[in-house]
């Protein structure tokens, strides 16, 4: 076998190398195309960024809200309103008895005179209440249960026991508002998902539409390159990369927007927190979260251009 003569063969790159070189070149070239029309590219990027920053920003606020509410369920308190005929001594006996209960952390007696005084002071009905002559309020036992977040039924069980005591008129669990807060946060979380999905679709449409216009503007170029022997993949590539760049720049800009907004809010939030004697601080997106945001944005850009290219490129055939 004689060696094939390669001297006259065209000096093409090995297929794989050519493939990567071409990809790299197209990647850079498509970025160059974006820079050549800075105004329209910037507008598209800004639309994508705002559409992404909105749900991501809500997410940040929500996770901050969850931080604040953590630990609040420890403040759950059961108020036992004793029957009107229960004397102070009986109330004290009941309190000491309850302190021995398994699920109870502490018990505090609020004397009815003390409660009345506070009510007079807070409500502003001082004179009206004085005219009643006798104190209509019962003694109250403030019971601090042991809260086990894993076992919410324990508290329910304790409540049932307390309600059955013959001295107790009403047992009221103040955990209710914590539960309400949690369910509100849950709704907000789901709401953010819904908004995210809608806005992600908006990003897809924005990128898709931009790429569609791009394809139409370059219709004759596409026809000519097809005539010269370009494959569909070759023609598709720059548009896909354009979508990718839109996604990347939009994602980064969204991150910047969120960080700026957090920066603007942080001072006021800290002020507010210090008024509540809290060291709470507004936290922005964690680095990993920011990276997922940008990655997701790139993916949306690619997907949007993929859809546009798939729909419109095949229609263009030389004639």
């Amino acid at each position, binding site marked *: 076998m004689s060696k094939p003569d390669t001297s006259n063969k*065209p*000096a093409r790159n090995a297929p794989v190398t050519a493939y990567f*070189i071409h990809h790299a070149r197209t990647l850079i070239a498509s970025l160059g195309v974006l820079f050549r029309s800075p105004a329209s590219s910037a507008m598209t990027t800004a639309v994508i960024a705002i559409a992404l920053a909105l749900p991501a920003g809500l997410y940040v606020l929500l996770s901050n809200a969850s931080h604040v509410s953590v630990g609040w369920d420890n403040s759950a308190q059961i108020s036992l309103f004793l029957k009107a005929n229960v004397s102070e001594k009986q109330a004290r006996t009941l309190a000491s008895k309850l302190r021995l209960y398994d699920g109870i952390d502490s018990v505090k007696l609020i004397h009815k005179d003390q409660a009345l005084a506070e009510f007079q002071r807070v409500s502003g009905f001082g004179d009206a209440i004085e005219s009643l002559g006798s104190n209509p309020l019962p003694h109250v036992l403030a019971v601090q249960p042991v809260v086990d977040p894993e076992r919410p039924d324990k508290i329910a069980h304790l409540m049932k026991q307390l309600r059955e005591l013959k001295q107790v008129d009403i047992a009221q669990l103040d955990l209710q508002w914590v539960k309400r807060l949690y369910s509100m946060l849950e709704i907000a979380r789901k709401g953010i998902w819904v908004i995210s999905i809608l806005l992600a679709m908006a990003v897809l449409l924005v990128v898709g539409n931009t790429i569609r216009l791009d394809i139409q503007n370059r219709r004759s170029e596409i026809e000519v*390159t097809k*005539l010269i*022997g*370009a494959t*569909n993949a*070759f023609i598709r590539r720059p548009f896909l990369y354009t979508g990718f760049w839109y996604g990347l720049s939009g994602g980064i800009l969204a991150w910047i927007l969120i960080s700026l907004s957090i920066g603007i809010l942080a001072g006021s939030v800290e002020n507010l927190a210090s008024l509540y004697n809290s060291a709470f601080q507004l936290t922005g997106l964690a680095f990993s979260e920011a990276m997922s945001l940008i990655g997701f944005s790139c993916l949306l850009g690619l997907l949007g251009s993929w859809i546009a290219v798939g729909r419109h490129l095949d229609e263009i055939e030389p*004639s």
Partner: protein
Amino acid sequence: MIRFDNVNKRYPGGHEALSNISFHLPRGKMAYLTGHSGAGKSTLLKLIALIERPSRGNILLDGVNLSNVRNSKVPYIRRNIGIIFQNHHLLYDRTVFDNVALPLVIAGYQHREVGKRVRAALDQVGLLNKEKCAPITLSGGEQQRVGIARAIVHKPSLLLADEPTGNLDPELSREIMELFARFNQVGVSVLIASHDLDLIKQMGSPVISLSQGMLIHDDLKEVADVEA
């Protein structure tokens, strides 16, 4: 190189652009395709470049039956053909160099090789000093020569030209036709559609004539008969 076998092309709507065309252009030969506008010249070239598919009959290009070429393989067939258009079809957002380089970029040539070949092609059409120009700044004849450089830069074995001199004055037209004759001399098969009968007579290559979609004159057949 090109063989048509009873080829029919009927467009949707019933217009028959080509009927029962058979001819054979041997490898390395040059021929002119003539006829009035509407005679089917462009359709015939489009069938060879796989822009259109025949309604009936077979076309063999370099031994490959084009009826069997799937759409996904069409680009690879086209890479072996250089096509020249009447209205140049240049890309006006890039330089002459980049226009000519396009077929090489598509085929994945090395960067250095692209530069060498583009300059060689521009040299052959006499535009070496214009590589950095924008096509729009060139005259009609120069733009057509850029189109020709782009068609030959990847050294195809077949050149197709559709009215390449359509918009040029007689002297420029003659120059362009002589350029094609020169490519033919180095072994490239050439098929040129033109209605410029006077010029064609001067050039002296075989002529195929179409009229209303039918073959009415075929010098190639006589050539083949003489050779036989």
